[in-house]
């Protein structure tokens, strides 16, 4: 039997890494291991974090390009 720990979190190289754009909800494929990605649908830039080789998540926006921040000063 394979130990539970070996079964768990086994990278699945066949699986395509997809993240969901938090602005327009489109799903897109970031390039492997990159820490930034641009949503092809709405053009917003995101910072990424990687949970595993097969799993990326959005960490936050690239604030300089975040819409509507021109006169926000907090």
């Amino acid at each position: 039997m394979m130990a539970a720990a070996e079964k768990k979190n086994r990278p699945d190289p066949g699986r395509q890494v997809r993240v969901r754009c938090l602005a327009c909800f489109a799903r897109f494929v970031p390039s492997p291991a990159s820490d930034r990605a641009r949503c092809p649908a709405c053009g917003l830039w995101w910072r990424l974090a990687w949970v595993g080789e097969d799993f990326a998540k959005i960490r936050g926006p690239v604030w300089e390009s975040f819409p509507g921040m021109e006169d926000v000063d907090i």
Partner: protein
Amino acid sequence: MSQVSVTSQRLAVIDLERRTFRVEQLDPQLTSRFLGGRGLAARLLMQYAPRGCDPLGPENPLIISAGLLTGTMASASARVNFAARSPLTGLLGSSNMGGGFGPELRWAGFEHLVIRGRASEPLWLYVRDGKVEFFPAARLWGQGVYQTRRSLYAEIADPRAQVLCIGPAGENQVRFACIMGGIKSAAGRTGMGAVMGSKNLKAIVCRGRGDLPIARPEKALEYNRRVIGQVVSSKVSRVMQRWGTAFIFDVTNTTGLVRTRNFQYNQLPRSEDLECEAMEPYSQSMAACFGCQVHCRHRYRLASGPYRDFWGQGPEYSSLGAFGTEVGCRSMRTVLECNHLVNDLGLDTIETGSMIAWAMELYEKGILTRADTGGLELGWGNDRAVAEMIRQIAYRRHLGDILARGPLPAAEAIGKDSRRYLIQVKGMSSLHSDERPTPSLALNIAVASRGADHLRGRPAIDLYNLPLDLLEKVYRRPDGYDGPLVNDWTSYRGKARMVMWQEILYMLVDSLGICKFHTVFFSPNHPAFEEFSQLVEYNTGLELSARQLWTAGWRCCVLERIYNLDHGLARDDDWLPDRFFDEPTPLGLPVARGKCLDREKFAAMVSEYYRLYGLDRDGRPSPELLNRLGLSGQLAGHAAGGGQ
């Protein structure tokens, strides 16, 4: 020791005045009707708390209840519930924690402790192997939680015992003091620590060596393993295994769903240091509650500062708001230090952060000045002032003494128009989430049984824009609901159902003693009624279908409402502060920007929620509902409505 049986639960009634205890077996019927944990605790509260008793008086019992599955090895079956009349709200006091105390209580021979009266001098209780012993705690009085734990472990010389205690905040009866189990687990909300403090009860140590029988061991092992697999295979569990609940911040702050500077903004831009990934340099490893494979808690130690000699665990998502966005701070280091502080002083994170953020807004508006704060500069983003204010609250100094009374009494004491800046419901402050753009989440905090509280009914998966068929698979079961459901989180339609469904599900897991991260909270694919029906059967032998569990959860939810109605709850209390309706969100992504709630639509949603529950237009249970849930006979004379 009394007989262990799955259907008849064991209860110790403890009298602090006489220093005696007696053991009772509960009527087995109560188990199938109210399960255990939070549900059965509400039932016991009805029985043991005289209606309208002073929350900090000796008549208010402190009721500690293990869940029906607590300690069984079912997925994360760690939780234990605390109930009393709340000194914060005057309504239902109810809070639960994970960690190790709940299972230990059962191995020690009890499902429930009902603690009555007030000790004439500080005491701690030793609950072990079917007995309760009373020890003087004068020496411990005044000590923080960390030191109290060290002292007690040194005294009992048994590292496997579990310790519950209060810190100075509980001793000083801060209305939102918590009870700490471990260095991180807390019964945070509704002021259960103040109740313990009012009883002169500093700590409860528990140690058990008794068996907890599993009804069908082979089946239970196999099925438990399957359910754990179901939980850990979800994406969100993988994220939580690494970053804990702090992961939520990345999504909500980006979107614009995070209360910032009390309620002035809904996002804190350029707060990279509050993102969950910013915890990595501090985190040594992860820790888990009993039986949990999600292990959502960071273990950390700061290299400098007053807590350099103490390990801490956390921070939770709530800490990032309480000591981050709400007070306008952008530092993980501050969050960690404040996390240490509230855990050591024994304060509820959410209430503490909210009170300080509110005070900061009053300070900005000139309603409070340095004369009120003991000279403290209460400006936004003043990290040092936040930490100092936490101490002021715990020790009731200067402004801290006023904030320690909780939102509504504090507003009354400060006067002017301070009340309109409060973000509270039923006298309890809200998490730092900003619900203006999300009607379903807003309804959840408006109607929750213990005041503004996300953990009583948050349909978090509403934020995922799930395919409608998946949403239907979740929310139409197990009773075959056939009303509207909408997968657009800006909509008001069908959301009352989501909130009711989540309320009943959360009631169920709180009553079983299972952690919410192991049910449909952040993932639609986690266990729900069907799985819990199997878990209950294999672990306890009790055969309750998914439908029967649904009804039991419903019954317990209505019971909590009856308790609140008995203590003055009215329809107006299931409502949000004006700011939710009048001040549109200034920041965030387009989907969350410029949003506030619509009074009319929101009122219709509350009415729909009442209707789905079988409540009348004032939110009172009709005689038919009481009859249907088997609550009428028992609760004659209580707040039945519909008649007038």
